[in-house]
């Protein structure tokens, strides 16, 4: 805890009354400041402090208007939350600003972090908080014609609360007006350098964009003079649903955020809930979780690997990797009964114990994969056309990567071994023997290489799980573990009461805040949960890695060709569900 107080004391010494501390249930130091001090405080944290917080990890807000339990916090209708990360320090800090009044506004920090651009747009879109000085404050996830701000507490969450929807002629005309493309809206211009640019609309339905995303290209011949991304087509209101579901019933929704990641999404969510509840998970459950998570990491990487090769015109690898993935799905199906979205983790453990014969399945997979990976290395990684197209392409420097909030394999390709499984071991990752592959170039090829090597490391972890699966319970006996273990319900009254309440209402988590970050397949994935002492979350913030990753694309592809854009998009490995949530 000393690291936690250290930075707070440092801030207090510098800003005096300008900052105040808040206690949270996680280990992230949290301070309040005012809108006028905000930029100064953040600037100090980014550049002034020793081992500075160089990454804007997340930026979000909370509608505080109906929250009951918030002792010692600054009063205000809304709170803007700035989550910074220092990789040097291996520590986070949360800076909060209370906002009130009819015109909610905070100063924009796009001058400090370029990555704040999309985050501030999202907060504006979802909460209606204005950021003064933002260059382009428009909706980002919701349609441009949307009325209201969805994550406000007074915005309906259900269709039935919204009143009758009618698609009138006027509405049609309005929607069509909103669809009209004007280059100025996207910060692009029709002419430049003596040429008239051609605007190419890539997407929302395009094979190269891996999901429904629109890339607006300003082309000079085939050269990309400028580009802009239009996201939000895949927005499903996952955060809003988090406020509507109970702690337990939200788990299946998390699966679908990064829809290739399966239980890798459950991981940060259940860990955050367990932090709120103070649940200690039994060893067996921990190892089962790690094993499933690593299998999903391999599967996610296999899909990406095949589609990446496909993006470069190589048609076969995608079939090979999907076949391998199918084998891994066989294991997942045998253990969980589901395939892509097993929703298998539970608060306090996993849904059920491993079935008989699981070890045979896993063993045959770990025996089968190495030969395949070796083949892929020859076919794809050592292919000279692939090398020629990706080496030196879309270079991201380490400084830029940190600045943009890039995490996961994309960051490790820039030369820093930042992996939460090693840096902040959770669920017993410190007990496993594995390495963190890194590269130094930061180009497309390095990103591909790092991810490919990760599959080897994940296989190693799965093998260790297989050989060292501990005996014991698969779920904690804690009263808040959900659904509670049934073995003792009919034998003692306490457990019966817990069981009845947990199953009928869902567990009631203590009021407070906690965030947990885990290493997903694509980068750091974290859930920031605010509990108001109810059966469901008061605010669920999902910080996904693909969101900031995608934001770097226009910078990476400037001056390159359309074909290069596809190679860059393929190497970044994003999933639109993970971007739009």
């Amino acid at each position, binding site marked *: 805890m000393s690291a936690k107080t250290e930075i707070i004391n440092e801030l207090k010494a510098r800003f005096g009354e300008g900052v105040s501390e808040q206690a949270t249930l996680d280990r992230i130091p949290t301070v309040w400041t005012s809108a006028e001090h905000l930029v100064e405080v953040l600037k100090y944290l980014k550049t002034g402090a020793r081992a500075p917080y160089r990454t804007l990890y997340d930026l979000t807000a909370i509608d505080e208007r109906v929250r009951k339990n918030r002792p010692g916090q600054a009063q205000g209708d809304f709170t803007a939350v700035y989550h910074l990360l220092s990789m040097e320090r291996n520590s986070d800090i949360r800076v909060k600003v209370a906002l009130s009044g009819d015109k909610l506004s905070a100063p924009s920090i796009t001058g400090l972090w370029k990555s704040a651009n999309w985050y501030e747009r999202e907060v504006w879109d979802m909460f209606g908080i204005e950021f003064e000085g933002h260059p382009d404050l428009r909706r980002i996830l919701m349609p441009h014609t949307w009325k209201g701000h969805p994550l406000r507490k007074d915005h309906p969450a259900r269709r039935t609360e919204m009143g009758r929807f009618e698609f009138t002629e006027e509405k049609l005309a309005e929607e069509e007006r909103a669809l009209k493309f004007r280059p100025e809206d996207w910060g692009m211009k029709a002419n430049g350098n003596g040429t008239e640019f051609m605007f190419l609309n890539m997407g929302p339905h395009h094979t190269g964009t891996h999901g429904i995303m629109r890339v607006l290209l300003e082309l000079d011949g085939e050269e990309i003079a400028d580009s802009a991304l239009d996201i939000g087509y895949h927005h499903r209101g996952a955060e809003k649903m988090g406020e509507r579901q109970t702690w337990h019933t939200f788990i299946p929704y998390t699966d679908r955020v990064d829809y290739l990641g399966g239980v890798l999404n459950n991981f940060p969510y259940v860990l955050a809930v367990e932090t709120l509840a103070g649940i200690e998970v039994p060893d067996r459950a921990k190892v089962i979780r790690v094993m499933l998570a690593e299998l999903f990491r391999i599967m996610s990487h296999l899909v990406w690997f095949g589609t990446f090769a496909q993006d*470069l015109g190589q048609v*076969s690898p995608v*079939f090979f990797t999907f076949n391998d993935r199918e084998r891994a799905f066989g294991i997942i199906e045998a253990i969980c009964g589901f395939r892509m979205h097993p929703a298998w983790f539970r608060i306090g453990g996993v849904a059920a114990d491993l079935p008989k014969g699981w070890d045979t399945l896993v063993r045959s997979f770990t025996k089968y994969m190495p030969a395949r990976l070796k083949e892929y290395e020859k076919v794809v990684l050592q292919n000279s*056309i692939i090398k020629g197209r990706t080496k030196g392409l879309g270079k991201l420097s380490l400084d830029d990567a940190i600045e943009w909030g890039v995490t996961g394999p994309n960051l490790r390709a820039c030369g820093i071994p930042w992996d939460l499984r090693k840096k902040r071991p959770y669920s017993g990752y410190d007990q496993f023997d594995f390495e963190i592959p890194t590269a130094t170039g930061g180009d497309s090829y390095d990103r591909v290489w790092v991810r490919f090597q990760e599959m080897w490391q994940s296989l190693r972890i799965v093998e260790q799980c297989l050989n060292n699966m501990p005996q014991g319970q698969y779920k904690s006996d804690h009263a808040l573990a959900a659904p509670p273990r049934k073995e003792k319900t009919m034998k003692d009254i306490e457990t019966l009461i817990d069981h009845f309440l947990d199953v009928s209402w869902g567990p009631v988590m203590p009021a407070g805040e906690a965030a947990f970050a885990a290493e997903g397949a694509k980068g750091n994935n974290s859930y920031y949960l605010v509990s108001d002492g109810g059966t469901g979350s008061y605010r669920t913030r999902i910080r996904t890695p693909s969101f900031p990753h995608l934001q770097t694309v226009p910078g990476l592809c400037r001056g390159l060709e359309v074909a290069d854009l*596809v190679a860059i998009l393929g190497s970044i490995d994003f999933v639109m569900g993970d971007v739009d949530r």
Partner: protein
Amino acid sequence: MQGVITPLIMIIAILVSLTTMSAGLIWMERRLLALWQDRYGPNRVGPFGLLQVVADMLKIFAKEDWVPPFSDRFVFILAPAVIMSAVLFAFAVVPFAPGISVIDLDIGILFFLAMSSLNIYGIVLAGWASNSKYSLLGGVRGAAQMLSYEVFMGLSLMGVVMLVGTFNLRGIVEAQQGLWFFVPQFPALVIFFIAGLAETHRIPFDLPEAENELVAGYHTEYSGMKFGMFFVGEYLGIVLISALITTLFFGGWLGPVLPPVIWFLLKTMFFIMLFILLRAALPRPRFGQLMSFGWKLMLPLSLLNVLATGAALLLLA
């Protein structure tokens, strides 16, 4: 009367067998790709899925043949016809066996080169007339690629022509009685094969289509049988290039025991499969890389080949 009917029957027979063959190729490519990609491919309609082609044909004929209102209607309709007829014309000079060819032209190779140049028009016109940005990019790519690969395609054949002293394809086959030309003209074979790949715009030279980048390139806006004609045109192109490789470098119909036509078909089939295998194996280069490969490596190589062949002929003479 006799003088008209025999060639007419020959033309019809060759035309029918070529189009059937290229349709059958669609099935073969899908099955072979499936074999190499750990899957089944079409295996439901008829024995081994052979009737899949028939089903596809019926479907494609029954499809709405949509001409986009924003397109240049006349040229839009013309383009697929240009591609298909250019390839079919080129087949006129291919000697399948002694006596089995449409016409025995003394300028056979030149005629083939001329027809394959016409092919470009189909792509450029399709890309232009569609009036769509993806098609335009595809068309421009196609034009640039085919123009530059055409240059050394022609040059690579000059070695063979110098050896035989004729442009007549029948003459070239007959000159290979003793030694097939892939031995003395091996570099030319490689260069011609690569140029042929580019000519048929197959992976790794499928940049005019490049579905991951340009949706479907120059034929993005095409549907129904017009799309089908591009498709069949592409397969006919593969057959054509394979047939020419057989004719120019592998002794055409020459071979022991089996009848000449069978030899010709077997050899052609082998190269067709090589085309398909390449598609299963290779990724696609970037456009700039493709151009510099053509101009900086292939062109000098084919010039060197002409030079070396000439020098050898002079020395031996």
